[in-house]
């Protein structure tokens, strides 16, 4: 009898834990762990058994049962072999458990991301995420054993006290200050000039400086400041990850520009592109202008209108149409009965983009030269005709010299515009085909490559350095061209 009694007692003692949900004897919350987060620690009265499930419930009122609460998360007790154990900060949220040895270990994660703690854990410490900020909430933990027995802890109130990080704004005051300083400097300069005029006795136009002040101010803010800022940027490490906190790096960006593979190729093609285009624009424009200026031509208005069409259509539309014509399935191949892919071939693409830009640029030159031609005195030609001068000689010795005053600035402007012509190449080939790793594409010119560097690579400093190089090239060319052609004298 006694033996039966002892066996019964022992059986009871051994079997008791199986049917007993680990009671949560301690629960603590900390609302100061992060924005929208609350730290929750709970401890159990006994080592947890395999299959136990802890559910964390949240409510805006004290939790006496889970009916009026929302489940926040689950922590499972089970076999952790073969499942991942992310370090603190690696997972979406952090959870630790105390296996009874007094130290906290990161939980494991099963395939659906549920936290898993080792069998025998006596405490769990989780950072609960996704909670409202600054609002009091109640938390409770419900433990359930594999056989369905459950225990709900007392609820504890807390609130996530940490607010959102300080609002990030762009610090614009230095820029406003710089623009203000430039404008003020210009004003002071104007006042000084006015005072100097007064001192030197130039009093006939007392308000001259006042009249030009608005234009000078606008130029300072809209032109000089951006140019100066661009030059400053070219000496900094500004890029997508350093905008706003860039620092001075000397001439590194210029070294990068010069050492770019394809620097000389892209510069060379830019020159070819500009020279061929401007020459063709002037040549065809002059030819057409003279044809339209001929007294023998009937229907001038109709021709003039037709020849103006390329200029009248938005260039991006006409460029896209041209691209379609040159594509393998385009009209050119249909017409020729071929299967060429001109835009995929480096030289073919270069020729195509130049041809399209020539087509686009002729109307402007034609109209400008046509205007200049009409201004030439007719009696000069009549006198030459009477003297028996042939048409070619009249063109060579009368028309061309008299058109110089128009052609020189036109060709200079045409060169600068073509040098920086972006949309034709961007829309036709996007600089491609790209046959050079880490370098410009076959049809890239300087300006299209700068776009890639700035907006595809995000290297603003390097792009600014490229822009400065372009600026210097154009200034040197313009200066030399004006000196050689006496352009300013010709205009005046």
């Amino acid at each position, binding site marked *: 009898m006694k033996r039966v009694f002892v066996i019964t007692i022992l059986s009871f003692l051994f079997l008791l834990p199986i049917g007993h949900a680990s009671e949560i004897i301690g629960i603590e919350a900390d609302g100061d762990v*992060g*924005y*929208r987060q609350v730290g929750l620690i709970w401890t159990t009265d006994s080592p947890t058994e395999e299959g136990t499930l802890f559910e964390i419930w949240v409510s805006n009122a004290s939790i006496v049962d889970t009916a009026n609460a929302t*489940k*926040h*998360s*689950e922590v499972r007790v089970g076999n952790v072999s073969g499942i991942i154990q992310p370090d603190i*900060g*690696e997972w*979406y*949220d952090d959870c630790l458990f105390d296996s009874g040895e007094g130290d906290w270990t990161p939980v494991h994660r099963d*395939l*659906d*991301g*549920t936290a898993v703690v080792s069998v025998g854990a006596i405490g769990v410490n989780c950072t*609960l*995420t*996704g909670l*409202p*900020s600054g609002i009091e909430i109640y938390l409770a933990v419900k433990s359930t054993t594999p056989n369905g027995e459950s225990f709900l802890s007392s609820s504890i109130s807390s609130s996530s006290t940490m607010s*959102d*990080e*300080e*609002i*990030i*704004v*762009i*610090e*614009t*005051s*230095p820029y*406003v*200050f710089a623009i*203000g300083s430039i*404008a*003020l400097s210009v004003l002071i300069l104007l006042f000084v000039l006015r005072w100097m005029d007064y001192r030197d006795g130039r009093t006939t136009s007392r308000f001259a400086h006042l009249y030009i002040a608005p234009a000078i101010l606008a130029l300072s803010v809209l032109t000089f400041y951006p140019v100066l800022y661009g030059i400053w940027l070219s000496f900094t490490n500004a890029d*997508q*990850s350093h*905008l*706003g*906190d860039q620092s001075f790096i000397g001439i590194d960006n210029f070294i990068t520009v010069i050492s770019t593979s394809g620097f000389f190729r892209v510069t060379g093609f830019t020159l070819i592109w500009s020279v061929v285009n401007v020459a063709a624009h002037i040549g065809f424009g002059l030819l057409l202008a003279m044809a339209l200026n001929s007294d023998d031509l009937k229907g001038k208005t109709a021709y003039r209108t037709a020849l103006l069409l390329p200029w009248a259509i938005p260039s991006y539309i006409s460029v896209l149409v041209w691209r379609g014509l040159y*594509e*393998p*399935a385009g009209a050119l191949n249909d017409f020729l009965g071929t*299967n060429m*892919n001109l*835009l*995929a*071939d*480096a030289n073919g693409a270069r020729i195509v983009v130049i041809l399209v830009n020539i087509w686009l640029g002729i109307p402007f030159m034609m109209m400008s030269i046509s205007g200049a031609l009409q201004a030439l005195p007719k009696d000069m030609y009549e006198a030459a005709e009477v003297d028996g001068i042939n048409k070619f000689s009249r063109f060579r010795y009368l028309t061309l010299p008299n058109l110089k005053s128009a052609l020189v600035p036109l060709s200079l402007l045409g060169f600068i515009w073509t040098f920086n012509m972006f949309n034709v190449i961007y829309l036709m080939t996007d600089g*491609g*085909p*790209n*046959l*050079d*790793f*880490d370098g410009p594409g076959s049809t890239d010119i300087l300006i299209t490559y700068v776009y890639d560097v700035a*907006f*595809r690579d*995000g290297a603003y400093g390097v792009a600014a350095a490229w822009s400065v190089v372009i600026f210097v090239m154009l200034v040197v060319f313009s200066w030399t061209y004006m000196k050689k052609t006496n352009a300013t004298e010709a205009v005046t």
Partner: protein
Amino acid sequence: MARQIICFCIVVVLFLPGCISSDQSSMVDDSDSSIELVVWHSFAAESKEQATFESRIEVFMASNPGVEVKISAIPYPEADQQFMIAAQGGEAPDIVRLSSDQLGKIGDIRVGGQPLLEDLRTHLTPIDRAKFDPRALNAMRYDGDLLGIPASQDCLSLLYNPLLFDAAGVDYPNENWTLDDMLLASSSLTSGDVNGLALPVKNAYWWFGFQSGFGGSLFDQNGTPTLDSNGSADAMDWLLDLELEHGVVETGTQTESMKTQFLSSKAAMIVDGPWNWATYEAGRIPVQQSILPIVSDTEERVAPLVTYKGWSVSKQSLNKEWSTKLALFLSSSEVQKEFAIETYTMPTHVDLYADPDISENVVISGFLNQLMEGTPAPTTRAMAMVYDPLVTAFENVYAGEMTSSEALLLADQALESDLEGLE
């Protein structure tokens, strides 16, 4: 005296703005209890996607009367760039729709030392997270941060026009097809102005799946580029030969011309995503879908890159809790289901995989099967940078300047060099 006053006024006007603190937090009008959220989406104009999106925004505003949502459309390919520019000017919207590869471009960007997107890990409860496919959720993470809530996923698959197959007496594609079967069928279907197959053979995005099928990979486990890994060159050759050697793909086929050819019944098969399905249906093409074939040599299936799109919250948002709430709503099971049924947008909610309306829809379930065979695109800066060197590699091989092995080796070196430059 008057002149001195004018001068003083000008000085004050010019200098005052520079001296005023730009702390915008003080500008928030606490007295106004209404909340305004600005959302940038990238759905095509006047598309079903846009209509569905706008109707759900109306629902959200109706159920949250204190919240006004202002929406703006931006072009999908430029979404990341436009968001970066806006954020750099302090004008970022509260929520923006971005893809996982776009997150890879934005993740490292800092303005004034701060990231551009909010880490949403602290905003979502584990129960919120558990609703999403873990692959999708993981794809929205960059360097540990959760930068978006996945609302959709997509990848390429094989689409075909059964009428052209019937006319040529060729069997339809099936799940046991190999690339050899596909090539044979393409040859049989190519006749007159009809091509057996249309796909942009020089486009790296199309190549990724074939590279994987041939046994290659873009990156190793450490994230180091492996563009020239085993099988990569074979995959490139196989694709380019479709046009250059076999002539089953029309010369110079690009993404748009692939679509045009299929719409005009001049291509029997294309490799395309679910995003154009509605267009093909509207064009009265009896389009069918089949899973991409198996590579005979490796016995691996062509595994297209899976990309995910989702809703991200700006770090500059003044209402991050509400923004997250709206992002969760736009990614919710109900909204995803509506998008799936209305627009063939593949869901990321695990519950929807088993939903009868989804699983019994031939198109959606077909693409979901393809997605399960796909490879999730890594959300890394390297992935965002992989395209440039590959474009050059393809151009060189296409133009006959290099072999595919040489081109891919150089592309790999160029990418590694670019990555070193970042460090």
